[in-house]
């Protein structure tokens, strides 16, 4: 591997990190909007949020990426830059999984807390903002951490659309060197290192947030190992 090829790989890492960052932001926003929407008092809001979750969880992320790249432009006249098209497809899909995490964490808050809010005649929005979310958010961090790793793995899909991410740079190097074992091993290792760093960062975040509500993080190895059970990625629709 020459230094020029390494530079290509580094550019790939940068694109992957950017894509991961933006789609994680979008997915978080979608998760909270849809997840909170599923606890709304109007049935139509609950229904629409549930419908969104079913549709975006039911289809494959790669099919969604194809759809955003090929169907959106002729259908609505939107031609998105690849980075934003990838962000949109990944953010919407993983946001649907994330909304289940938000809903679960909100449902797990002690009902007495909510009743206390009603007794003090808080508005629904005040209850959500001041009582439910501050207690629910720290509980969401471990499953969100797992979902983030799934999202990282999902970013590799955009390479199929020719976006120059880490997986794509691997293909370029393979074509340049006519040799695949070495470069793909490096690419897999880089993904693994990014995943490892992400879990560390999320663990720190969990500790910080839990300290904010006066709890210590419970370190159950199971919550990390049982990733799809915690995130519902691939869970039953």
């Amino acid at each position, binding site marked *: 591997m020459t230094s020029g090829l390494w530079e290509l790989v580094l550019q790939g890492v940068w694109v992957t990190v950017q894509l991961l960052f933006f789609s994680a932001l979008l997915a978080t926003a979608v998760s909270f909007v849809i997840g909170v929407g599923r606890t709304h008092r109007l049935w139509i809001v609950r229904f629409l949020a549930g419908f969104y979750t079913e549709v975006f969880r039911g289809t*494959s992320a790669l099919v969604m990426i194809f759809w955003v790249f090929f*169907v959106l432009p002729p259908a609505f006249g939107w031609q998105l830059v690849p980075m934003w098209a990838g962000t949109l497809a990944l953010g919407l899909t993983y946001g649907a999984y994330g909304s289940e995490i938000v809903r679960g964490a909100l449902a797990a808050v002690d009902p007495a807390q909510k009743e206390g809010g009603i007794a003090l005649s808080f508005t629904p929005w005040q209850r959500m903002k001041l009582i439910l979310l501050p207690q629910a958010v720290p509980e969401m961090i471990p499953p969100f951490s797992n979902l983030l790793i799934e999202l990282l*793995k999902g970013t590799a899909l955009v390479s199929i659309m020719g976006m120059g991410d880490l997986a794509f740079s691997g293909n370029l190097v393979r074509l340049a060197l006519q040799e695949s074992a070495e470069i*793909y091993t490096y690419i*897999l290792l880089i993904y693994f290192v990014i995943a490892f760093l992400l879990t560390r960062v999320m663990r720190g975040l969990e500790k910080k947030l839990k300290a904010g509500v006066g709890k210590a993080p419970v370190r159950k190895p199971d919550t990390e190992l049982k990733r*799809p059970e915690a995130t519902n990625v691939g*869970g039953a629709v």
Partner: protein
Amino acid sequence: MKWDWSAVSDFMPHFWDGLLVTLQILALGSLVSFVLGLVWALLMRVPSRFVTWPVGAVTEFVRNTPLLVQLFFLFYVLPEWGVTASALTTGVLAIGLHYSTYTMQVYRAGIEAVPVGQWEAATALNLPVGRTWTAVILPQAIRRVVPALGNYVISMLKDTPLLMAITVLEMLGEARLFSQQNFQFTEPLTVIGVAFIVISYLASLALRALERRLAH
């Protein structure tokens, strides 16, 4: 937005071909992942660090890296090592291997959930180790984990389009080929998108029915 029904009817024969391949991948991939996952889970119970540590490290690595890159790895590297397999076989192996690292956790949970009295009874009856596993522990453990394994089958369904990247003509591969030949992207891609939603919804209904049956 233009919707052309004649493109849909033109695409349908290709769709059925693709669906067949997708279901094939799903069936074979599930089989591989169920068997390999059980092997990993059993190896993780061997009371020796020299076995559990490498198995744990390898499965953790496979679980934390993208399936797509693993597919490329197997597709391009195996021939370099002199192993030639069709794209479909390679894809099934890759997807089965990837999901086996998830199913091993399911099996592990199932095995740990078997009451300790069952182990003690097997010891008291002087059953050999092999017989304890095959006749006492696994039948109870696997019955418990069937619904969780089913969830992974649905998950795997949504990962089968990745095999398109290594030239397998499953649903998405067929849709892409058709689109490129006819310059009609909207219809085939929407058809398979809806097909995925319908299949995974039906599968989850079937799974819920199975779960209810097993609960009794």
